[in-house]
């Protein structure tokens, strides 16, 4: 368990530094690349928790698709090289209480539901079949609901993009 703890600490430091640089860097593309670091760190944390399917999904969806589309969109519109000065606006200070509130709520929820319960020493790797049995069994209705949300988003994008 010691090796896992060391790697947890390394990933956690990388993620915290990356998250701070996302909001403080002076270039949109740099901020996006720091966000990639944070998301890759999250994938590493999932591996440490023996949740390999979730880790691979994290890489495929967030790094391979979302961040690529994000960078694609920024580069098509307004990604200048070098530092930019107008990336901040005056209300950035409001973000701090929101972040603290979110941190408090999530910490409370985690401590409330798990307490001082510990992870098993040698966690069993959750196989893909177990996950699919869960998704297409007890969680079928939420899965359908999510699919409808995505479908609605797709139709909305088509309606906005088509002129005729």
């Amino acid at each position, binding site marked *: 368990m010691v090796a896992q703890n060391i790697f947890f600490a390394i990933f956690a430091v990388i993620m915290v530094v990356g998250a701070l640089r996302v909001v403080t860097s002076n*270039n949109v*593309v*740099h901020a996006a*690349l720091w966000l*990639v670091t944070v998301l890759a760190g999250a994938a590493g944390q999932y591996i440490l928790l023996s949740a*390999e*399917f979730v880790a*691979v*999904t994290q*890489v*495929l969806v967030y*790094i*391979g*698709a979302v*961040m*690529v*589309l994000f*960078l*694609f969109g920024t*580069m*098509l519109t307004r*990604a200048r*090289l*070098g530092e930019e000065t107008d990336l901040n606006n005056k209300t950035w200070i409001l973000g701090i209480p929101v972040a603290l509130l979110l941190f408090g709520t999530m910490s409370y929820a985690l401590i409330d539901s798990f307490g001082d319960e510990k992870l098993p020493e040698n966690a069993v*790797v959750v*196989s*893909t079949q177990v996950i699919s049995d869960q998704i297409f069994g007890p969680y079928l209705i939420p899965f359908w609901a999510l699919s409808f949300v995505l479908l609605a988003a797709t139709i909305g994008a088509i309606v906005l993009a088509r002129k005729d």
Partner: protein
Amino acid sequence: MSVLLAVDMPYWLQTILRVLGGTVAVLLPAGTIVYVFLFKMMSFMQSRLGPMEAGPYGAFQLFAEVGKWLQKEDLYPDRADKFIFKIAPIVVLTSTFLLVAVVPFGPDAWFTNFEAGVFYALAVSSVSVLGILIAGWASANKYSLLGGLRAAGQLIAYELPMVLAVIGVVIQAGSMNFQEIVVAQNAGEIFGWNGIGNPYILTQMVGFIIFMIAVQAELTQTPFDMPIAESELVSGYMTEYSGFRFLMFFIGEFATAGVFSLIAAALFLGGWGIPFAWFGWDSMDSVDNWMNIVGPLIMFTKMMVLSGIIMWVRFSYPRFREDQLQKFAWKVLIPVSLLNIMATAILKVAF
């Protein structure tokens, strides 16, 4: 691997051997593809001799080329984003090295026996898009940026048919683990006849064709070479790169061709195995140890055949236009692969 050498190796030694094996499995196919296909087959198809001076029939030309690239100055444009410009080729090459990690070469000759191997391969192959995109942006050159944007649009579009084509194989094998897929093909039988196993190229012919087309596009090889179209964009996202960093892009391109051929061989052509019925094997455990030596050779042969097809198509066809390219992915490949998934699922349940 420990069985192969008949000694019990400590974990760290196994790890070092696997990392070395992975490096060989990336660089050896890349070098072979460049020499055999890019230098010699292309020359033959264009009625010329190709490199002849360095070594017998120019066999050492590749070493000369690498020596030349290593000596060149590592230039970067004045207005470029230097750090990102420098790491971009490393991102592309890293994705290739990560990709080979799940390809099995024999019953014990694997680098990592990942449960969700197929899914992992598709995920890490999509990371290279990120490297190409930031290479184009950081070059401070409008041709590079256009090349990077074209590459991103193309790779996203062809990622989907690739994932969907593989799902047919996953349904038929009932597993996402490469080893189990290979075993399922070699232990399988066609209507009770087990003479050649059941390579999925027979049942998943549609999936195989879609997969190879998508690989061609993912590698940005002609006819899908809009991102580096040399008559329009100089050399696309690679325009500003020189010396060692260009070499990294170059190795990345051909090494990825080799690794994708290895993956296609494992998914559709039976991988490292020979039909198990020939030697009376019935499962993974009864496979003889000598397969750890023969397996890599079989994989290498299949890799050469498949990358030969990729290069053959590359040298034969003219380039697609951007709109044709996108239409082909979204209006032909994706619907066909969805139909393939439906048909496979229905037949899987029926039999």
